[in-house]
């Protein structure tokens, strides 16, 4: 199915949700950028529409570009060769209190496999998926901060063990 046809369906199901389409990589793939708040409606359409049936969230990746977190959903269908890339952004406020951490609607009710992926991104980037700041168990208990944010400051000491990045000329 052509990307234009998918976007038409999304515009019908969630008017104003689609912001733009943009090239992804050099392989000819296109990504659909949407409003983060419209994620559940868009996700439900992508999964339930009989022509799309994008029922498999293959990957959820988060990247920080300047002061925004870009969330990318790599989708595919079990029944057809159709694949799609869905993207949304949330703005970061670096001086935020825990209640002000960026929030993105969860898609785990639509794609159940999103649960572990959302938890992971939540722990490493400090995103509240569905209002919840979850721990995936990747970081040791009691870890402070969100290490995959660009503003992350390495601690001088971790659980009583001194830590220094002096002597590394890379960063």
């Amino acid at each position, binding site marked *: 199915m052509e990307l234009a046809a998918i976007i038409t369906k999304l515009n019908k199901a969630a008017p104003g949700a689609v912001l733009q389409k943009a090239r992804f*990589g*050099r392989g000819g793939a296109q990504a659909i950028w949407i409003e983060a708040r419209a994620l559940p409606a868009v996700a439900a359409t992508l999964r339930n529409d009989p022509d799309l049936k994008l029922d498999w969230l293959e990957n959820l990746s988060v*990247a920080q570009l300047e002061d925004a977190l870009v969330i990318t959903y*790599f989708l595919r269908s079990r029944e057809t060769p159709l694949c799609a890339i869905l993207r949304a952004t949330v703005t970061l406020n670096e001086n935020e209190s825990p209640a002000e951490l960026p929030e993105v609607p969860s898609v785990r009710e639509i794609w159940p496999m999103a649960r572990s992926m959302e938890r992971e991104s939540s722990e*490493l980037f400090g995103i509240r998926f569905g209002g919840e700041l979850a721990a995936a168990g*990747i970081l040791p208990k009691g870890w402070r901060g969100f*290490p995959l944010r660009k503003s992350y400051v390495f601690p001088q000491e971790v659980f009583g063990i001194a830590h220094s990045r002096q002597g590394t000329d*890379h*960063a």
Partner: protein
Amino acid sequence: MLERLRTDLTYWEIGPYHGALPGPMRLKLRIDGEIIVSGELETGFLHRGLEKAMELHPWPATITYADHLDPEAAVFGELALCLAVEEISGLEAPPRAQAIRVLLSELTRISAHLGYIARVGRATGAETLIHYVLRDRERILDLFELLTGARYSLNFVRFGGVAADVTEGFIERVLEVSELMRVRLKEYNDLFTFNHAFLLRAAGMGVIEMGLAFRHGLTGPNARAAGISFDVRKAHPYLGFEALDFEVPLGHGEAGRQGDAHDRFLLRLREIPQSLEILKHVAENVPSGEYACMKIEREFEVPRGEGYGRVESSRGLLACHVVSDSGRFPARIQFRVPTTATLALLPEVIAGLPIADLPVLLASLDLSLAEADR
């Protein structure tokens, strides 16, 4: 007169380091008698901050980190990263490099599957099998050493090719080992696959049904044992897999139920001959030419853009999303690893299992805590 024994639920904590566990993790179990009622997992003991570390190092050094994603099958992490970077940079690995990458991939798959068979053997007390299998895996590690100088962390795939050409005698020895493995597989089968004692431990145990597998996004041999026919080499061919003739085995529940521990074991055993077939074809037809399209210097820069590399690792779909904002350092490298899904469904599979089956179940799931924790 019969007396009913009333027992309270007991709480067991196993790990983070225990011989029955596939790596450092903590299992918190609620047990009724000898039956597991529910289980929770705690992971993260092997977190090394690989993705963050990659952002702090120049592009060529990131390969070394990708190599450590899953030490048992190092090539797949390297490969997924290199495919994504090549997509952004527009680099194209020459045909000879592609052939060497295929050889490494399939040798790694066999090596990892042999490691798996040895672990299942250990969990079921099949000492003879462990020795047979590890003896044969050494032959493959010898091949890695001959080609790359390393036996485990190969650090050999490069952006646009591989680090070096094949060494003298490598191709001939790949063919030799392939022939030997065919004979050995028959031995393993005769000795173990339908052995009565093994069937009692594995058949019908730890069933992952197709619906459960799909709900958690399970891929690789565990998903194929449950009947999900998905293999990246077929769905999104890379390295020229589309031109190679091989089959993707599926589980049928031959000795118990589809998706049980025996199916998972059998599936890996059946994937090895497919890999041997690929090895034979590629080793006999390695094209001449360069092994890399360019020499990657320390100052190598990747233009602004994004790439997404997918490979079929020995455990399933391994994907790498790379973002570059141009320059010497990556903006973001993210890995999608197959073990995350396996860990997610584990609590559902262990519920209702006798505690004695736990080591066999864990071995049959082929978990890599290294790749899950990163």
